[in-house]
């Protein structure tokens, strides 16, 4: 099976090369047989990539240590789920996994659009095949997962303990699903640019794929945050690590595109900008891959040193060059068909929303690359850590939050003063009331205060929008409140799903602002001793050590401490935190010890306990952190995903009505003589 998998990898490479060549040739020569052959090559590439993947999974499950990748990332005693997740845990395996996802998306995209957009289809097929070919080249020549060892080791090196976590098993695939999905809109953009068919036709497919990418990137980022929080033990969920930043970049530009595409659909504007955003999103996804795999930037998440960085640098440069050429030679075709009529209009707020989203993306990119730039310019190494990113991005993020509340309140084309007054009164009152309440409760942190006031303002906007829409339905159709709200969302999923996403963002910002009140205590505690601490809400806690225990479990030796945490006037809870020393199948230690965090979760705050070490006299060194509102981070993320699902959920056929109306084809409209 290993040999079969390796052979399949090479055949897939040939298939992708064939698909690229004949698809572009078929498009240029307008030869149906070549176009069809290119489409079939995409399906064949997928079949062989599946076979290559199955070969590697089989080698991992069989612990075939003659394969270097299997010996490097697994051991005989590694639990089976992690043997499977080892497929994407290392450099070359994850490249093959990436290629598998890409080949699958390519086959689905080609299948769905083979008749829908006949002029674009060969170029879409050709571009997707070309991208697949690039990844297959890197996998086959740069970092081949089937590389053999010249000797047969008795056991493998094992998997890094920090990757032996359910969150880490599912976080990378979701990120890959998101990253890779950006290739499809990119292929459509390239096809539309080549054929100069830059009308709204290609945008439909692109929007769906960008949404899919956004959805999976959101899941991947959230799971990564959760993994960092529960596994790494440093007490937070976002460290502005270069690899974390790399996942945020395409998410930001993709989000910008999902907003600006509405301006093109409604008003025929921002066509150049939208094509640029689609291309930038894909190239930033490739850039993220480059950062993770090249070793140019130090990160806890990056893969070991290899030569694949050169491949991705080349890929990035070619992609950038071809895209720049195509866009610059099609500027006339990309001219807007309408012009902005007022600065106080929905389209103007979308422009500023895009400016901030892209601005944040730029600042993240700039901060990530600044150590390299500084070293190149001054010859001095510097560190750009979390304080830098917080200082630069917090004001920008708050501006973005404000726009999430302002945008929906302003009409398209031109808003009147009366309209503005009517729309803004409610949300502004809710923001002011929240501010006064928080001041009265004693909050003095400026950034947190601004975040909560703006959050209340945006929530006011969202509630007002839902209330107005539901009220209109009740008047029109005589529906009850529940039915009106449900039908309102069901009939305009993009708009109201978007508002649900905004609500999730507000909850996220509120949770982020809670970190301003975090409190940490370093404690040295012996069995039977107690420690008293005051949480950010002024409540007293007592932590009593129940002692240290040592035991063996699966593939690790565990040292654990149990604490009884009691809040004054509340119930006692048991918190256990561990240090784990992983061992191989012969019992020899592998890797450095890892931390297993003890977390007592409530809606108000997490009590987060980390065992730093245990001395010979059983005295344990622990850190106790009160982390306010962390549960709201996961809730906010879940709300965003629900909103994303609502937006993505397929809706009945829509038609463009006469006179520029965009309307759902519903029974009432059908009986009106359509």
């Amino acid at each position, binding site marked *: 099976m290993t040999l079969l998998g390796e052979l399949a990898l090479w055949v897939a490479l040939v298939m992708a090369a064939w698909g690229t060549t004949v698809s572009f040739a078929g498009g240029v020569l307008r030869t149906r047989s070549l176009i069809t052959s290119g489409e079939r090559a995409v399906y064949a590439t997928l079949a062989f990539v599946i076979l290559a993947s199955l070969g590697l999974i089989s080698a991992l499950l069989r612990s075939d240590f003659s394969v270097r990748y299997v010996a490097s990332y697994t051991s005989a005693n590694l639990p089976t789920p992690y043997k499977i997740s080892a497929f994407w845990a290392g450099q070359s395996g994850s490249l093959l996994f990436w290629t598998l996802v890409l080949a699958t998306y390519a086959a689905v995209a080609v299948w769905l659009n083979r008749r829908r957009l006949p002029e674009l289809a060969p170029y879409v097929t050709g571009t997707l095949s070309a991208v697949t070919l690039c990844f297959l080249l890197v996998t086959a020549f740069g970092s081949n997962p089937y590389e053999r060892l010249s000797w047969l080791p008795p056991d493998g090196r094992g998997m*890094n303990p*920090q990757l032996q976590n359910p969150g880490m098993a599912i976080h990378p695939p979701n990120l890959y699903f998101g990253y890779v999905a950006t290739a499809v809109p990119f292929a459509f953009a390239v096809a539309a640019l080549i054929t100069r068919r830059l009308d709204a036709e290609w945008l439909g497919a692109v929007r769906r794929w960008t949404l899919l990418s956004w959805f999976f990137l959101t899941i991947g980022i959230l799971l990564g945050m959760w993994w960092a929080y529960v596994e790494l*033990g*440093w007490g937070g969920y976002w460290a502005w*690590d270069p690899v974390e930043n790399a996942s945020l970049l395409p998410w930001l530009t993709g989000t910008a595109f999902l907003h600006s595409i509405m301006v093109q659909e409604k008003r025929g504007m921002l066509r150049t900008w939208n094509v640029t955003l689609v291309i930038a999103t894909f190239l930033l996804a490739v850039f993220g891959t480059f950062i993770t795999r*090249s*070793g*140019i930037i*130090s*990160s*806890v998440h*990056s893969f*070991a*040193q290899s030569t694949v960085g*050169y491949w991705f*640098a080349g890929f990035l*440069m070619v992609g950038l*060059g*071809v895209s*720049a050429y195509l866009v610059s030679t099609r500027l006339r075709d990309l001219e807007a068909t*309408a012009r*902005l*009529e007022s*600065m106080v209009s929905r389209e103007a707020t979308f*422009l500023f929303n895009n*400016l901030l989203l892209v*601005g944040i993306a*730029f*600042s993240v990119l*700039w901060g990530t690359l600044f150590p390299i730039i500084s070293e190149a310019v*001054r010859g*001095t*190494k510097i*560190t*750009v*850590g*979390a304080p*830098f990113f917080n200082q630069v991005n917090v004001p*920008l993020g708050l501006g973005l939050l404000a726009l999430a509340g302002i945008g929906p309140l302003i009409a398209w084309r031109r808003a009147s003063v009366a309209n503005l007054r009517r729309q803004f009164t409610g949300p502004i009152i809710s923001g002011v009331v929240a501010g006064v309440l928080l001041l009265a409760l004693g909050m003095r942190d400026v950034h947190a205060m601004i975040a909560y006031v703006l959050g209340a303002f945006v929530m006011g906007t969202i509630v007002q929008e839902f209330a107005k829409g539901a009220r*209109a339905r009740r*008047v029109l159709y005589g529906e009850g409140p529940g039915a009106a709200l449900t039908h309102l969302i069901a009939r*305009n999923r993009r708009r109201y799903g978007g508002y649900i996403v905004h609500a999730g963002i507000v909850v996220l910002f509120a949770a982020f602002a809670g970190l301003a009140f975090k409190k*940490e205590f*370093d404690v040295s505690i012996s069995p039977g001793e107690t420690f008293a601490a005051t949480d950010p809400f002024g409540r007293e806690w007592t932590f009593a050590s129940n002692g240290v225990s040592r035991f063996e479990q699966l593939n690790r030796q565990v040292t654990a401490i149990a604490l009884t945490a009691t809040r004054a006037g509340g119930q006692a809870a048991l918190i256990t935190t561990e240090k784990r020393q992983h061992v191989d199948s012969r019992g020899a230690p592998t*890797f*450095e*010890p890892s*931390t297993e965090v003890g977390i007592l979760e409530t809606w108000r705050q997490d009590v987060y306990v980390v065992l*730093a070490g245990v001395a010979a006299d059983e005295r344990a060194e622990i*850190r106790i952190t009160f982390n306010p509102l962390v549960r709201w981070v996961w809730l906010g993320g879940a709300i965003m995903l629900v909103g994303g699902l609502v937006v993505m959920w397929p809706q009945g056929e829509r038609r463009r009505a*006469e*006179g*520029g*109306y*965009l*309307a759902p084809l*519903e029974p*009432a*409209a059908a009986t*009106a003589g359509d």
Partner: protein
Amino acid sequence: VVSRRDFLGAAAAGAGLLAAARAVPGQQATGLPGAEMSGEGYLPVRLPPKPGAEPSMTPDERDALERRIACPCPCTLDIFTCRTSMPCEFSPAIHRDVMALVDGGHSAQEIVDAMVGVYGEAILMMPRKEGFNWAGYLMPFAAIGGGAAVILGILRAWRREAEAAPASEAPVVDATPDELARLDAALRRDG
């Protein structure tokens, strides 16, 4: 359809970029915690205690100081955060140095300067606000400011064009004409 001229232009641009890609600088080692360490790792930072020295700061102030010092391991965290969570040999050692310097009566600035003297500027969690480093702090805001200026310029030009041209487009409303008529009737009914 791509013309031959367009195709050759694209091919030339691609070849140039490929050549540029070959000039990418050499790559450094990195990896997961415990696998490989970046930089030079732990270097002792020692200063003689001041005469009659007493601890120069409270534990909370010392923690705040440690949050300004970056750990040399690939964790990208500060000393205070890294030392209890990561499998790192450097942050506990640097923490011990900081405690010794604090006990020796040295101020936060003196300790930071001593750290920079031994490790270089990379030991700071964020670059000092001086010289070229200002580019790091200001560029994002400059870019956004520049972007805003460009957008405002374009919007003004568009608005002038729109004002000069006669209004011809129908209003864009997300509803069918039938729905609009019914909405209009309902609103009239509603007062």
